[in-house]
Each structure stands twice: as C-alpha cells, then as structure tokens.
C-alpha cells in the first residue's frame, strides 16, 4: 500500500518553477492547477489516490463503509495522525473542515462538490452553520449522510477541498490561512517569500512511514516558462512547472539527451469548442454537426507540435466511461458544407469565436477560423483576457468559445466530472459554466441516475455515462478538438517512476514520492 521505491534515497532538495505566483495554499480555496499539487502535499483528505494513477485509496481514513443504499459513509480515521502543529487529528476536525468549505463565508470555489451531503442547502443559503449530514461518532469515526446517492462521493472526499484542517490554526491565521497553512501532509510550509519563493519542508512526523523522500521542495515563482527551461538546461531547476514552452519543444525533443528526460503521459483533459445552442443559427443541430465536421483536428494538433491527440467526444481516453468504438464526426468540409446548405445556410453565416489570449490559444482559434471559413462560416475572433471570456461564456453572449487555457481538467477521474456544470442544465444558467447553454432534461435525469448508482466502478454505471456522452454528441453542443498530452521535463538527478511525473492528479509531479539521485 505504501508503494515505497527500493531505489529511493531520502534527502535533498528539488527546485520547481512557476510563472504565476501561488495565490493561496488554503485547501478550501486553492483551485489553480499549480497550487493543486502543492496543497495535496501539505494536506490530506480522508481519501487519496495511488501515486501516478487514478486509483482511489484510503487517506486519513484507515477504512470506510458504505451503507447499502449508498447514502451513508462511515469513515474510520487513522490513529496517531498529527497536524504540522503537533496536535493529533480527530473526527471533529473532519467535520469542521467540511463545514468550513461549504460555509458561504469561506467563498470556496469547490463548495458545490459537496452538494450531495445532507444539509448542504441549508449551509449554502446561510440558514445553518454546520452540515447536518456529518456526524462525529467518536474521535476516530465520522459518519456522512447524503441527501441523494452519489457514486462519485469517494472521489469528492479525495479532492483538495475535502482536506482536513485544524480549526485552531485556521482561526489563528485570521483569514490568512492560505498563507499560513497547517495540515497533515507529507510536507509543511517552511518559508514563503511572496512573489519569489516557497520552501516546503519534510514533515518528519508524516503518517506514511518513510515518506516523503525529499527534505525540501523549493518553488520559485514568477519565472517565465522559456527562462525556466533555460535554467533547467543550465542545471538550476529540476522541474519546470509550466512544462516545455512551445518555442523550445522541438529543440528539446531533437536532442536525445534532453528528450530522454521528458516524460509523456495522458491527462484528463479535453479541449473543445462550445457552440451556443441558444444562438441562431447554432440552435440547429445540423449546423452544429456541420461545424463538427469542418474542424481539421489533425492540423490543430500539428500546430501544437503534436502534443495532443485528436478528440471525438467530451471524455478523454484515459477516463473511465470513454467510448472506445465511437468514430465521432469525421473531418469532411464538403459534407459539412452540404449540411449547412441543407439547413438553409448555403452561404454560411457570421459568428464570433471567443478565445483566451495566451499562446497557443489565439493560434488555435485562427486555425479553427480558417476551417470554418472553408465551409462559409465567417467567425471573427475575440481574443480576450480569461476573465472576459468567462464572463461572455457565462452570460451566453458568446456564440462559440475555444476552451483552451480554461479547459476542463477533471477534478477527479470520474465521467460525471465532465457533465454537471459544463454540459448539464445546472450550468446552463446565466453566469454558469455551461457555455453552450445546452440543457437536456432527459439527459440530466440519466446522468443523475448514473451517479445514484452505488458502486463507482461498476461497468453498468460507466456504460450509462458512455450513453450520456454519446447522446450529447448527437446534439453536438461541443466540438471536442483534442486531448492534450502532458510532457513533463525533469533534471537528470530526478528519480522515481515515470508515472510520478505524469501523475493525473498531482501536476507536474507527485512531490511525496519523487527523489533525487545525487
């Protein structure tokens, strides 16, 4: 269970760089991909994943039981787990943490994940202070009652948002918990010089014996990716957090020595174009299908140096529930043109394509634009800051949006994660994240049914999800374009299984398990 690496040598420090500053290390708030893995190393939830995989394993919970109706979860806590402040973690902490993350005052972007817990609505509306569904049975046992069955609940409990935090430390920090995090994780925060550097120190009392291997991890922020790579080549950096910048990709891959240090892996990501089904003429399914057929996905993949695989459905291939035998809409501009003509638009139409303004997204948008132009659809590009695109998407004013840069990376490896907020009716409201405003009550019902199934990994459930997504594709509210591949580069001294460098939930690397060889 511990997955110890026989070759691992304890000790040492690695340096990881990021462009963006770390906004917060508060597990209830942090939702950037870059602080996601950092928080994972500082905190633990009741559930966890096997390193380098999407396989659930117990975390702070030693074991758990699920009632037959799948509505009640009983977690037995691991004894003797200590917070970084030295206090032992108990069931009260779990309850406190869940209350905190769902409390509107916390302003957690992840609060919605806990919607299935009984009493959530009361807390969310401010009527209650605590979740009625969470009860402390004894100091080592917590029981969580759901208001509806939720097959993904164990995954939810493995989310950062479900991390267990000590109340006294949160209160002592007085709102600055994000800057003074205290958890139970493999590392604790050593130094944080705002805008420059964070140093994680090994938690000597970590409850997984022998972990972590590293003494310290240094994160240097504010580093331009291209500069970070230069530094890596110069031996100053071990992992460039933002990956290999496109401008350097060919150079790195052309050099066998450097290419050998690149680890490639899939990730739970799909890049897609949303087609706003409420905006004519995109409200016609033929038009949407035509657009699906117009996009030359291979060329787009070529544009990003082949660092992706063309997609044909919302789910990425490595996600359970992916429909392997689905062919999708083949690239066929002629047929697409014909379909448009059949839909009464022989001359095409004018529309707008919104895109976030960081490379390579505007480039991809221009490729899409050219493909659309080939079937007579004239899309003008709106390349805007992330916030403005999200605004336009939420407000439903954007006919088409290329999702890149804001794309859906799964929060947890479950097919349901790609549906709710981005394809379901719940997200299709003003300000929601369902930018195609696609809302099919029947499908929603099917989705709910699938999630209500008790066993998560059941074939049947995955089949149901597969059906849901196939039906989505029938309606074609999206053009799935590609699934990005991850290319993580490391310094020569880095050790550990390759899987750790493409860990699906801990990007760019799983800090707890990697080690240095010198």
């Amino acid at each position, binding site marked *: 269970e511990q997955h110890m690496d026989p070759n691992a040598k304890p000790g040492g420090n690695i340096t990881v760089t990021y462009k963006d*500053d770390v906004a917060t290390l508060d597990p209830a708030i942090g939702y950037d991909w870059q602080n996601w893995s950092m928080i994972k190393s500082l905190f633990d939830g009741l559930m966890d994943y096997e390193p380098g995989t999407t396989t659930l394993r117990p975390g702070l919970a030693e074991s758990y039981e699920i009632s037959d109706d799948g509505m009640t979860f009983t977690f037995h806590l691991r004894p003797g787990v200590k917070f970084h402040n030295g206090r032992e973690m108990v069931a009260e902490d779990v309850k406190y943490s869940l209350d905190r993350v769902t409390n*509107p005052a916390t302003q957690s972007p992840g609060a919605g994940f806990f919607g299935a817990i009984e009493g959530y609505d009361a807390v969310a509306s401010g009527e209650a202070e605590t979740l009625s569904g969470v009860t402390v049975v004894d100091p080592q046992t917590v029981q969580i009652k759901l208001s509806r069955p939720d097959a993904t609940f164990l995954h939810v409990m493995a989310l950062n948002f479900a991390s267990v935090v000590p109340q006294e430390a949160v209160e002592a920090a007085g709102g600055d918990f994000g800057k003074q995090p205290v958890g139970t994780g493999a590392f604790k925060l050593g130094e944080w010089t*705002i805008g420059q550097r964070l140093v994680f120190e090994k938690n000597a009392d970590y409850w997984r014996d022998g972990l972590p291997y590293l003494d310290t991890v240094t994160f240097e922020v504010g580093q*331009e990716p291209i500069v970070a790579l230069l530094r890596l080549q110069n031996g100053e950096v071990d992992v460039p957090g933002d990956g290999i910048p496109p401008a350097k990709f060919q150079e790195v891959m052309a050099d066998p020595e450097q290419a050998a240090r690149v680890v490639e892996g899939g990730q739970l990501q799909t890049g897609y174009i949303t087609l706003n089904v409420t905006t004519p003429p995109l409200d016609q399914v033929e038009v949407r299908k035509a657009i699906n057929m117009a996009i030359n996905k291979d060329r787009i993949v070529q544009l990003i140096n082949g660092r992706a695989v063309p997609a044909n459905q919302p789910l990425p291939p490595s996600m359970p529930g992916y429909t392997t035998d689905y062919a999708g809409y083949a690239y066929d501009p002629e047929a697409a043109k014909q379909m448009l003509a059949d839909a009464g638009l022989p001359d095409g139409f004018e529309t707008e394509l919104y895109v976030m303004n960081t490379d390579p997204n505007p480039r991809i948008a221009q490729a899409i634009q050219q493909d659309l132009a080939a079937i007579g659809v004239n899309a003008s590009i709106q390349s805007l800051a992330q*916030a403005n695109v999200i*605004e336009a998407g939420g407000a439903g004013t954007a006919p088409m949006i290329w999702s890149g840069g804001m794309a859906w990376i799964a929060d947890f490896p479950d097919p349901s994660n790609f549906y709710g907020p981005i394809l379901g009716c719940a997200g299709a409201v003003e*300000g929601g*994240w369902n930018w195609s405003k696609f809302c099919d009550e029947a499908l929603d019902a099917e989705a709910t049914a699938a999630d209500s199934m008790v066993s998560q990994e059941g074939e049947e459930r995955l089949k149901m999800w597969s059906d849901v997504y196939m039906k989505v594709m029938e309606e074609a509210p999206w053009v799935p374009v590609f699934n990005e591949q991850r290319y993580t580069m490391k310094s020569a001294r880095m050790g550990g299984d390759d899987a750790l460098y493409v860990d699906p939930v801990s990007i760019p690397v799983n800090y707890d398990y990697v080690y240095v060889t010198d």
Partner: protein
Amino acid sequence: MVAYLIRRLIQSILILLGVSFITFFLLYVLPADPVRQIAGRSATPQTVENIRTQLGLDQPFIVQYGRYLAGLVQGDMGRSYLQKTDVATLIMARLPASLLLMVAGIGAELVIGLTMGVIAALWRGRAVDNGLMMTSFVTVSAPQFVVALLLLYVFAVKLGWFPIGGYGTPAHLVLPALTLGILGSGWYARMMRSSMVEVLRADFIRTARAKGLSRARVILRHALPNAILPVIAMIGIDIGIFMGGIVVVEGVFGWPGIGQLAWQAIQRVDIPIIMGVTLVSACAIVTGNLLADLIAPLIDPRIRIR
C-alpha cells in the same frame, strides 16, 4: 519650502483621488465579473449571489467606491478576491523589488542615454553622432521582451556572467536594469544631445575655456550640470512610462515586483489588487514628479520652489 510641500501633497492627494475614481469606474463597467472567478465552476447561482453580497458588489457604484475610499483612509486597501489576503501585504512584499528595479533602470537609462547624448553632442555632425542617434532609434523601437530575452541568453546563459533571472544580489539586478536602461536610453540620448549642443554654445562655456580649464572639466563640471536640467524634468514623465514597461521585464527576469502581480490580477479581475497597484504606481509617479521638481533647484539654483 514646507508650505510648498504641503501644497504639493494636497495636490497629489487630489490626483490620487482622481486616479482611484477613474480606475474604480473603469473596473466597475468592465465586462468581467470577479465573482464568477471566485465562485469557481461548480458554484450554484445562489453561491454566486452570496459571494456578491458578501463583497458588496451588488451595491451601487457610488456606495462601493465610498466604501473603498473609507477603507483606504484607514490604510486598508482591501483584500484580494482570489488570494484572500490583504492587498497591502501583497503589494508591500513586492514593492521594494519594483522600486529597486525602477531606480536602477532609470539610473541605467540615464547613464547610457546621457553618455550617448553627450558623445553625440561633442562630435555632432560626425559619423559618431549619426551612429548614436540611429542607435537611439533602434532602442526606442525594440520590443522589450525580445531585448530582455536576448540579454538573458547572451550574458546569463551563454557567457554565464550573471544569474539567469531571480532576485536578491546586485548581480541579479544588472540584466533587468540594463534592459530597461537600453530600451529607455534613446529618449534621453536625444534630449541630452540637443540640450548639450545648446549649452556648449553658451557664454559661460567660453568663459570656462578662457580660464584655461581642461576639456574634461569644461564638459563635466560646466556643461553637463546645465545640460542635464531639461532631462530631469523628463524623469518625471518617464516614471509613468516605466510603470507600464516593468511588467514584461519583471516577467522575463523573474523579478518579484508589482508588475507581475498586476498582470495576474488583470487576467482575473482581482479588483482590489488592480486598484492597489494602480494607486501605488500613481503614488510612485506623483512622488517621482515631485522629486524631479525638488531636484531641479539643487542642480540649478535659479529655479525657486514656491
């Protein structure tokens, strides 16, 4: 003097008020909703409304602005929406780096630009002059990012003379300051050249020569201080331009200044941070102008502060 300072202070405060009002207004009408950024993807409409109310973003513009001002008066610049930290803390952590870079950058600009200008003026009409003025044009037209990367590549990566980005030692400062210096030097070179040409024609230069002073002394001690005056006034203007240019250079060199903070905040409409950075920059500009006005009489005693 004291009266003058007080008067300038009042003026500056009014300017800052104006800046804050306009920025606040622009952010208010900006087509981007910070609440959506905070609430995240899984948020229900109710959560969104909750947050909006908590932040007071549902209030009319004037009320929001009034509250912001009231906070400001008490030294509270608000809390970052996304980082959930006091804006003052964030800015204070980064401000010294930016100020250091600004001072060093302007210093480099002056050294490079003034030297170029003086040399061009002394050899005016010759090839050196034409060459330098041409160069000044190239520097004015060069894109920052490319120049920054180029310097980094040559002097840090290839030659290894300086660290590849970062902050802390004087060695770290050299390349970013040099980048800013090179980019801004063109303006100063041109100003200095024309100013110097003018001064070299002045009667007192002839007097100095008639005294039998060495050429170096005539130029450095007599011509330079007189020629530099119009350039001083330029520094005030320059700081404004500088605050804009700092974003890119800080980015490339991993310099932990407020430029990067602003850049991230703008991407994600973190209004309190944008407001804070704007105000701090405005403060720097206003102070810079004041300093320029205060320095001028030190160089030229004929200028009186009233």
